[in-house]
């Protein structure tokens, strides 16, 4: 059984069908790409998969459990985490604390144990620090753990966002344009990191990307959206050579 199964997913805003009848399957451990021209509805798909929007048609299951229409909080707890196209960090918090917020639900000490500094507070805080630093190390951010998130350079903010999403220990990671605003060197490094995350954390990753080098380089399968509908689907090499896809990207 596939980890994520999307069945006929669609949403209407007023009269506009932003996404229509999207069906796709992502297997465990896969690196899957969702591509398409601007305004094709890619981020809208992410928003439905993470509960920001409730789909008007169809649904999706994670590990066989139907999640469409649930709240973002519930969906995250069920195992989907994401990053955002326009970075959404906790800008007034340190890099370390950003990741520690991601670890929030993995710990159990309650408000009173926290306020009165009971033993579980110290034990779990220490565990959180350790885990957060491990995650920061994956992205080479361990040297900046006390920096305010807002003072990080752009490319590193994107990485921190991924680290924070991973902290919630998801089964499926959604990356919304992770390479946006990066130079070719940074992108190359990011590709390595994404592959590393997949291998090391045994992660399934669905990503939206415009950088075709990155998509061609790491994605095993693709779905191409155009005007909210599936234009092509399948193995990366085949999809990228599909004349319809080329036409949609280059125009006529």
């Amino acid at each position, binding site marked *: 059984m596939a980890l994520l199964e999307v069945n006929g997913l669609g949403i209407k805003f007023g009269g506009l069908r932003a996404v229509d009848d999207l069906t796709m399957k992502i297997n465990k451990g896969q690196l899957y790409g969702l591509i398409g021209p601007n305004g094709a509805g890619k*981020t809208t798909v992410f*928003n439905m998969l993470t509960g*920001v929007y409730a789909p008007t048609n169809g649904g999706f299951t994670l590990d066989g459990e139907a999640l469409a229409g649930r709240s973002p909080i519930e969906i995250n707890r069920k195992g989907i985490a994401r990053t*955002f196209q326009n970075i959404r960090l906790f800008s007034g918090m340190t890099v370390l604390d950003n990741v520690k917020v991601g670890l929030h639900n993995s710990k159990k000490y309650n408000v009173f144990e926290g306020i009165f500094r009971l033993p579980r507070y110290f034990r779990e805080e220490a565990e959180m620090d350790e885990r957060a630093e491990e995650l920061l190390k994956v992205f080479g951010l361990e040297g900046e753990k006390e920096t305010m998130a807002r003072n990080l350079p752009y490319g590193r903010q994107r990485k921190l966002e991924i680290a924070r999403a991973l902290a919630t220990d998801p089964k499926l990671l959604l990356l919304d344009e992770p390479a946006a605003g990066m130079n070719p060197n940074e992108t190359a490094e990011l590709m390595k990191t994404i592959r590393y995350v997949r291998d090391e954390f045994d992660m399934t990753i669905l990503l939206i990307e415009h950088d075709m080098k990155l998509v061609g380089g790491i994605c095993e399968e693709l779905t191409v959206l155009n005007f909210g509908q599936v234009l092509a689907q399948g193995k990366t090499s085949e999809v990228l050579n599909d004349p319809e896809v080329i036409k949609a990207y280059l125009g006529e």
Partner: protein
Amino acid sequence: MEFLEQLINGLNLGSIYALIALGYTMVYGIAKMLNFAHGDIIMVGAYTLSVAVSTFNVNPGLSIIISMIVCAALGILTEKIAYKPLRKASPLTVLITAIGVSYFLESLALLIFGSKQRKVASVITMKPLSIGSFELTGESIVTLGVTIIIMVALTLFINKTKTGKAMLAVSEDKGAAQLMGVNVDFTISVTFAIGSALAAVAGTLFTSSYGFVGPYTGAMPGIKAFVAAVLGGIGSIPGAMLGGIILGIIESFSKAYISTQLADAIVFGVLIVVLLVRPTGLLGKKRMEKV
């Protein structure tokens, strides 16, 4: 008869709220900010009028125009000094700043005029109108008349003139309007000027009905007019009119039939209920946050 009398009272008060609410709603629509100091513009307008009429013996008609000009200028000035630098700041920041401006105007008035309320002679000289045993005061007639004229004029201005359309465009999408060649700064200034001039008119009508002005005269009507704007749907001009009238009638009936002291509590209770049941107000539009 009492019912009719209270209805007229309510319409009278409601018209004043509607005029103030227009200022709130226009500014909110365009600058996306709650101008907490808007109520205090009423107070400035009332003082200006009172000083012009009783200290300088200017004729009432001209005094009203002076008061409108002073308030319009004040509106533009506060926007330029206090709000413009904060266009990209959080709503929290802007609201605190607006509270600061409100306090500034109140304490300035307190310094200049003292805490004692100043008597304001009514500038409305119209004779009351008697219909059978029922008497309609000149103030009521003028208030209702002026409000209707202003509403019509404002609606025409926004829908028919270039500046009015620019205001609509800026309220939809500031960035896009700018790209289409709309002068956003100018449009915002015009909005503040019109809103504040309307507040001056409201101040004139308010003090003509009540006879006094003090440093805090504007605060309560200001907050209630904001309630009216929210009730009608913030950002909506017909909503401000509707909200103002409804609120005026509720207040007037509460005072007459329930309790004078509890009238304010009832008005605020209405606000809370509206916001919980229909946060966009009666005629407001829903907005979705882009993720």
